[in-house]
């Protein structure tokens, strides 16, 4: 077997091992990559930053555990930012699995980092509602029809944070963390465009390209994948240095992502190099065979 062919036919288990190493080694060595926010991410940060304390924010966790490594860091950064700014946050989800993602924030992050914040006063969990994009439409048309209690069944009127919430427009912004449908696109189409509420948020790296057409007219800002989350974290640390020592998950996970991206680029380049070398070799042999045929000599070379 010639060298280009042998390169092209590398056992895929070797590639799997390389990818495994590219993920695990940076996780162990924890290299830090400094990021700076791009305008599309900075726009979200600035909007949250400008809101006066006590403003009502709607944060929808439209994802499940499969995309949590990309979207959880965004959720944590947004919760840290909104809580630091003393905003009132209503958690919600259009994904059945999103309930568990909200619980991770309300059970683990908030009591530890913001012990002075109280459930029902500073934040509330409105839970999951079925109906995909239709649920958003129902909430815009008649909010209390669909959402009349929190996830534990406490009526909205009994919670100080939601007692005055009668319509979707009582929220000043909608933030959605999106893994697919329903997600930011539906929030834009059914709530942002119709009710005039500014919509922004984040999506996985796969979803983000589909959301660019809405920016900046219908979508205030977008965090795309882990990179977007890392940019938001850097904006947060720059503005609030107290977070410098906090665990910034996206910044930490950028290490494996950087090494994996570089490895994939190298593998693709290597594959193409082997392909073209092999093709050139085959072309040369075919040329020599053709020449030998025309001159009546054997094709040995």
């Amino acid at each position, binding site marked *: 077997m010639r060298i280009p062919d042998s390169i092209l036919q590398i056992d895929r288990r070797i590639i799997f091992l390389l990818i495994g190493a590219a993920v695990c080694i940076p996780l162990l060595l924890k290299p830090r990559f400094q990021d700076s926010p791009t305008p599309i991410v900075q726009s979200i940060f600035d909007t949250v930053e400008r809101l006066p304390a006590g403003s009502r924010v709607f944060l929808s966790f439209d994802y499940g555990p499969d995309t949590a490594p990309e979207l959880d860091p965004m959720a944590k950064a947004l919760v840290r930012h909104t809580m630091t700014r003393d905003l009132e946050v209503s958690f919600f989800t259009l994904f059945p699995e999103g309930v568990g993602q909200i619980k991770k924030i309300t059970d683990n992050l908030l009591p530890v980092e913001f012990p002075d914040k109280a459930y029902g006063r500073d934040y509330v969990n409105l839970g999951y509602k079925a109906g995909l994009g239709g649920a958003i439409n129902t909430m815009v048309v008649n909010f209390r029809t669909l959402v009349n209690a929190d996830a534990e069944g406490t009526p909205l009127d009994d919670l100080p944070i939601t007692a005055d919430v009668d319509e979707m427009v009582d929220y000043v912004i909608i933030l959605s963390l999106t893994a697919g449908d329903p997600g930011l696109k539906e929030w834009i189409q059914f709530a942002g465009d119709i009710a005039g509420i500014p919509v922004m948020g984040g999506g996985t790296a796969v979803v983000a390209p589909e959301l660019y057409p809405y920016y900046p007219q219908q979508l205030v800002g977008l965090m795309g994948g882990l990179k977007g989350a890392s940019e938001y974290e850097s904006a947060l640390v720059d503005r609030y240095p107290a977070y410098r020592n906090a665990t910034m998950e996206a910044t930490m996970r950028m290490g494996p992502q950087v090494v994996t991206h570089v490895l994939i680029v190298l593998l693709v380049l290597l594959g*193409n190099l082997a392909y073209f070398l092999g093709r050139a070799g085959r072309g040369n042999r075919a040329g020599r065979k053709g020449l030998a045929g025309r001159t009546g000599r054997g094709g040995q070379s």
Partner: protein
Amino acid sequence: MRRRIPLIITFIIGVVLITGYFVTRGPFNTLYESFSDYFAIITVFAFILGGGSLLKIHLKRVSSRAADWPYSVVTLVAFLVTLVIGLFKVGNPGGMGGEILASGSWLRFMFDGVYNPLSATMFSLLAFFVASASYRAFRARTKEATILLSAAMVILLGRTPVGAWLTAWMPESLAFLELPNLANWIMAWPNTAGQRAIMIGIALGVIATSLRIILGIERNYLGRGE
């Protein structure tokens, strides 16, 4: 008659919803609001339909010993166990009145200990297969493939700090050629243009299909039975 009544219902509801969207007063608006509420109620029943359908398909596979039927047994057991634990809030510290995913409940344990890692594992396998597939199939064979390959390389590197580091030496006048800027440009312009074209095409298709359904031209949703 079995086909005519659903067609009439579809026509009336379709016309009311379209009109209610544009006419924000009077009976159309009231009907629009009512139908939105009905929608929220009806979608909940989709879960029952989905659960019933899942049971039917997998029970059939198990009873007929179809290929890979043991996987159907696993599906059925997982479905029924989760359903019972969730419905009856087994192990929930708050009892039947407790929060569905309360700390210490069995459902919370299943979510955190089983569903969460399994789901993350399945998704993370993608990285391995994407790398292997890119290596084997991503070739600059044609002009179009070369453009796609170049854009992918720019995005892959430009979306990491390595991209900035690799092209940091460029003079200010050529800053637009730095990988992060090129990646942002690809996302903001060619990507947006392509996505918009696809979205507008899909939207026109949805409008055309919706009109065909409302007017009764498209009847496939009614099934084959006469």
